[in-house]
């Protein structure tokens, strides 16, 4: 059969176009509805367990279980040393090492000043003494956590109670989550957290050792987990327990209108750290 080059090229071109477009056209016909709805908001895919909606500043009411915390800075200012007490309680509960070196520092909860905790808020003509207040900072257990999206192994994930948990077993130490977290709430174990002093004591925070809680290993990222092992036995997180009756910290399900924390939140003006990041932090501050 004599095929002219011109005719051959025409057929080849048409077949190529048909081959490329046909499956796409076919698929979009089949899943037309589903496809349209998933891209409607232009929002990134929701992190596992959280229902991130892309409505800008207007946050939808959520009835998902979400543990959260209210930290009353004024109460911490009234009770001298209470903030440090919370840090000690947490770090000795979780065998957090202290190498006395800011480069290797591991912190689950820490004290900083207003200026560094709330960088998004204007410091111009701010209240006198604002930066002398002890501000407790920790993982915000965001409703839309960027660290969870960054983690390649699902070592960090949002559990059924809205807590952003670290599964230390799965962490490969890539530190993507640390880059993703806008709050600096994650620390990397550059050194073996089980290092000992010459006298045989662990280099743990204030020499505190809790035999019931494991340590981590070198090359693992760690952060506050809202004490799931304590919540499971009906205790409050270690830091909240350390505040005693001062009500400086309130903990609970922020999406349950009957909970104490929801009532505190509705009765007080609270701010969150860097709300513009869109992460929806679950830790609130009364300044």
């Amino acid at each position, binding site marked *: 059969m004599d095929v002219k080059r011109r005719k051959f090229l025409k057929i080849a071109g048409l077949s190529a176009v048909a081959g490329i477009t046909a499956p796409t056209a076919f698929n979009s016909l089949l899943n037309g509805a589903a496809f349209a709805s998933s891209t409607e908001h232009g929002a990134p895919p929701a992190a596992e367990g959280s229902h991130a909606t892309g409505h800008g500043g207007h946050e939808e009411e959520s009835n998902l279980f979400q543990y959260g915390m209210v930290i009353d800075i004024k109460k911490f200012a009234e009770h001298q040393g209470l903030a440090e007490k919370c840090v000690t309680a947490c770090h000795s509960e979780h065998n957090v090492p202290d190498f006395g070196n800011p480069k290797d520092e591991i912190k689950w909860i820490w004290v900083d000043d207003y200026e560094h905790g709330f960088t998004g808020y204007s410091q111009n003509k701010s209240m006198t003494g604002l930066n002398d207040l002890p501000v407790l900072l920790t993982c915000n257990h965001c409703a839309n956590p960027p660290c969870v999206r960054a983690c390649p192994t699902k070592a960090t994930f949002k559990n059924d*109670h809205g807590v952003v*948990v670290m599964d*230390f*077993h799965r962490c490969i130490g890539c530190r993507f989550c640390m880059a993703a977290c806008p709050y600096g709430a994650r620390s990397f174990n550059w050194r073996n957290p089980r290092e000992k002093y010459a006298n045989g004591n662990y280099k743990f925070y204030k020499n505190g050792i809790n*035999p019931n809680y494991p340590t981590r290993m070198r090359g693992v990222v760690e952060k506050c987990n809202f004490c799931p*092992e304590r919540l499971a036995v009906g205790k409050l997180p270690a830091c909240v327990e350390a505040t005693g009756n001062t009500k400086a910290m309130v903990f609970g399900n922020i999406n349950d209108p009957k909970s104490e924390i929801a009532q505190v939140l509705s009765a007080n003006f609270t701010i969150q750290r860097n709300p513009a990041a869109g992460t929806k932090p679950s830790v609130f501050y009364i300044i």
Partner: protein
Amino acid sequence: MPMYDRGKVLTGLAIFVIIMTFPVWYNLVRAQHVPKTELPKDVKQCVGTVDYMRSSHMQVLDIWRNEVVRDENRKVIELGGKQYVKSLQLGCMACHPDRKKFCDECHTYAAVDPFCWDCHFQPKETK
């Protein structure tokens, strides 16, 4: 047929065979030391049968870990009026406190090196 340097060749061959088969007989001798398992005193039951625990304790630990850490399922296992926490450190080691006897005895024999103890404490370690 004459064989040149008979002595040298044969000794060389003998040495070669000994070196090549060294791993075989070395392990034959070593394998004589079969680990002796010792059941904990005063404890009559475990969360599984002896055979099951021997063959599948690692799966049990993995399942427990995933349930506790990932699924928020910390339900205590109740067996014969006794409660067992789903935990290596607080569960298993409560009845089997000696890591050397309970873990290392077999793991060393089987050349299995689990990394549990990089993070978890064994009962005596913290004292």
